[in-house]
């Protein structure tokens, strides 16, 4: 896989995770307490992954 493809995939991953967090935020209000806990954990994990991917993206600039 060439370098631009890797960059595209990283960007794709970031956009996908952002979309998931956005979708989860829209559904959040209608969830039960148990679901809200699960949702928050997954949203935090996704946010953490985004942070990791952003760092990885930063490395591609070097």
């Amino acid at each position, binding site marked *: 896989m060439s370098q631009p493809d890797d960059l595209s995939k990283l960007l794709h991953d970031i956009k996908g995770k952002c979309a*998931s967090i956005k979708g989860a935020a829209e559904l959040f209000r*209608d969830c039960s307490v148990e679901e809200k806990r699960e949702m928050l954990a997954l949203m935090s994990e996704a946010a953490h992954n985004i942070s990791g991917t952003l760092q990885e993206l930063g490395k591609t600039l070097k």
Partner: protein
Amino acid sequence: MTKLNILVVEDDKLAQKVMSGHLRSHNVDLAGDKKTALAKLANGHYDICFFDLMLGPKDDYSGLKLIPVAVSKGFYCVVMSGSDSDEIINKAYGLGCKDFYSKGNEESNVEAVIRKYFQSRTGTASADIFSSRFVTSDPATRAGVSEALKYAPSELPILILGPSGSGKTSLAKIIHDYSGREGSFVAINCSAYTEDLLEAELFGHKKGAFTGAGETRKGRLLEAHKGTLFLDEIGTMSLNMQMKLLKAIEERSFYPLGSDKPEHSEFRIISATLENIQQLISQGKMRLDLFQRIHGFTIDLSPLGRRKDDIFQLLTHFTAGTKRLAFSPDAKAYIQNYAWPGNVRELKRFSELLVSGSEGRIDLAAVKQHLTASDPAAPAGKLSGDEAYRHALANGLEQTLDRIAYEIIQRNMTENGGKKTGTLSDLKISTRFLYATLKKFGAMPGNKDDQPQGDE
């Protein structure tokens, strides 16, 4: 709404959770990688498959490879994406995907995808409907129902016209089932309530809102949230109620009786009437603005008497799995020529009577015993309870009572083999009244005991 089997192929756990939330009213199966997805596609049966194309951060669009597998099994495929290039999306369409769901886009919603699926299904499903849920071989009726089903997944209001018993409620329910709407089908017969009660039924009420309102009750409008509100006999609704309903339709909100807090409801309207709605408008009995709100697509169901080919087809349908009915030739001819004033409802009752009460081949006498109209060739038009009420409103009570008296006399005379002496005795009426009624309706007899003195 019909519960669908849906497969979501998505590697991201949070995205899986979001899709499961959007599709909570259906059976959802999840696959997070290509191998699991292939196994599920091989063994499962799905109505819709949603495909994420990149299954993992470093994945090489393996979701694309799953699409032909699902398409080959006849599943409706939808590509899900938040950021894929047009080239990749076009590739997915080229492989057989039918629709696109934009992840993270607030304007894109799963419900719209589901509706499109139902829309695509109505074409093939309508043929099944005509042999199961709405039995007819009449070309005009089939064409009208097929056309109505095309609009099932839309928001368009549908108006169903047709005489009592012709299948208006059944058709409304079928349209709802093919709409893909997640809410319920809520039906109300407007003619069954007085104005005050209809208002309470439609809008609901708070405890103590009126005498007898012992507890707070949700109205039909709220029950139909995200579903279908079927207003049967809408032509009987008072102008005052029409105005209140129109406001609720336009604003999508309303106040339950005794409440100062508005309720919100997104319902789709299907309405029905047996009356001539244009006439109601010209007579000032139907508000034009309400009519414009309820008649997006109009279907007119013919009376059964004009769909002769359907009679025996329906009889077979109603008796399936019970008893195979056989008729003598004259009984068969009588059934075929009978006017069926009560339409399909009357035929259904007739079939139930025959299944339970007949033995062997059914002869003419047995058939006549169960059919109420006096003259098999007489046009449909017997007055049922609701129809009598509306007839009285339109023509005056006196005229309606005259007509009911005539129908009772006709029926009794038939049961007495045309002998008026029997009718005079059975109904305890005077000779003068009998002849006056028959004369009024142009039915002075020319048979049996034609001369009054002959049987008195």
